């Protein structure tokens, strides 16, 4: 399963085929970019053995941190940190209460829609020619929905994204145990997982998607939920198993 084979006669005498495990080392070292990095990141999500190999290599390379010379940052960094930490917590937690009554109804409807869309996608025969698209009036930014289906515990989580406000709402996610956090990821056009935040285990989660991540939230993009240590993955990439996935679709 060595993802790729070198072209015949690639590099003289030692044209040994690429070893599958080298990709784990390459990802941990950080030499991959573009498509190769995307392929390796997908393997992290899909293959726990590969994910473990990446972790092992990260730990090996971490020994090199010893050699890194120190440099003093300016005092402004600590002052700014104090201000950031003391600032009131982000908008996400103080989302307007009045939406809370409407939300369960929307969630119920949209999860049905998302489920039926998935049904259509699953049953559709292999794409021969692109089907004629129904004409949709696109005066407003299009709401996107997804049913994030859990493989095991917990029912599907319905997600609704409003590009107009950057708000992403999700129904209750009961996947995480007490010692875990369920973290939501978007895998969009760049094929790289970006964290959107942690999911509440009780009740609705409302996330404000950062401007950087908004570009990734488009129809066809994947929402995935991984189980991380409490507080979420510190590395910026999923470390734990992916327990649920769903595709964003237009309503």
């Amino acid at each position, binding site marked *: 399963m060595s993802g790729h084979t070198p072209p015949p006669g*690639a*590099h003289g005498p*030692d044209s040994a085929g*690429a*070893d599958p*495990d*080298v990709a784990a*080392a*390459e990802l941990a*070292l*950080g*030499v*991959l*970019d573009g498509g190769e990095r995307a392929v390796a990141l997908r393997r992290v999500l899909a293959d726990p053995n590969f994910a473990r190999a990446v972790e092992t290599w*990260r*730990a*090996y*390379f*971490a*020994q*090199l*941190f*010893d*050699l*890194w*010379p*120190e*440099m*003093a*940052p*300016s005092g*402004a*960094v*600590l002052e*700014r*940190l104090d201000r*950031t*930490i003391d600032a009131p917590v982000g908008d996400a937690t103080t989302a307007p209460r009045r939406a809370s009554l409407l939300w369960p109804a929307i969630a119920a409807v949209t999860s049905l829609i998302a489920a039926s869309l998935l049904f259509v996608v699953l049953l559709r025969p292999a794409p021969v020619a692109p089907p004629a698209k129904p004409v949709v009036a696109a005066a407003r930014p299009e709401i996107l929905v997804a049913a994030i289906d859990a493989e095991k515990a917990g029912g599907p989580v319905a997600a609704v994204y409003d590009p107009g406000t950057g708000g992403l709402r999700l129904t209750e996610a009961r996947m995480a145990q007490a010692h875990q*956090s369920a973290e939501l990821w978007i895998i969009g056009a760049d094929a790289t997982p970006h964290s959107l935040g942690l999911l509440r285990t009780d009740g609705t989660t409302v996330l404000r998607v950062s401007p950087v991540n908004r570009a990734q939230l488009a129809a066809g993009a994947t929402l995935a939920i991984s189980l*991380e*240590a*409490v*507080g*979420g*993955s*510190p*590395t*910026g*990439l999923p470390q734990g198993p992916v327990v649920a996935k769903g595709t964003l679709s237009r309503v």
Partner: protein
Amino acid sequence: MTDARPAEPIGHTPDTAAATAAREHLTEMLIRTGEEDRQAFRELYTLTSAKLFGITFRICGERQAAEDVLHDVYVTIWKRSGAYEPSRASPITWLATIARNRAIDWRRAQTIRRSSPIEDAPDIADRAPLASDTIVADQEAHRLHACLDGLETRQREAIRTAFFDGTTYADLAVQQNVPLGTMKSWVRRGLLKLRECLDG
């Protein structure tokens, strides 16, 4: 693996004992930061910011960006230190990994590719210090260094540069003025040899 603290010989050499004590102190500060202890967070910053700034500065290549990234790194640490598991990584490894990943993210988001090394970043040492004051003080610490020493110079240098500068295959190939395929071949063969050595 690394949490065999009770069995760790105390006072092997003064250096090792000091390193162990420093690591335990840092672990405690990190755990207390996870409990939202601001004093501990400040102490953690004082102890580690020069190390982490060294990392973000080298990879970002400019002071302002490196300080912005450093700020984000410590905000992440403040929010996520509750997730730190002492049994899985030494505290400085955990912190440094966050700093390196964030700096690389910043760099990859830049459209301009930097192909030359940064002029004013301090040099990276060739060898590991026998016992550093903050980093892992266990017996595994020097294994990678020994294995790297066993590689061909060009393989070793490419791997080191990739790690310390956060460079990709494409960056490395431009820097060394070799075709991309050649650079990949050097690094891949180096990594294979490294794995044999580390597993052996």
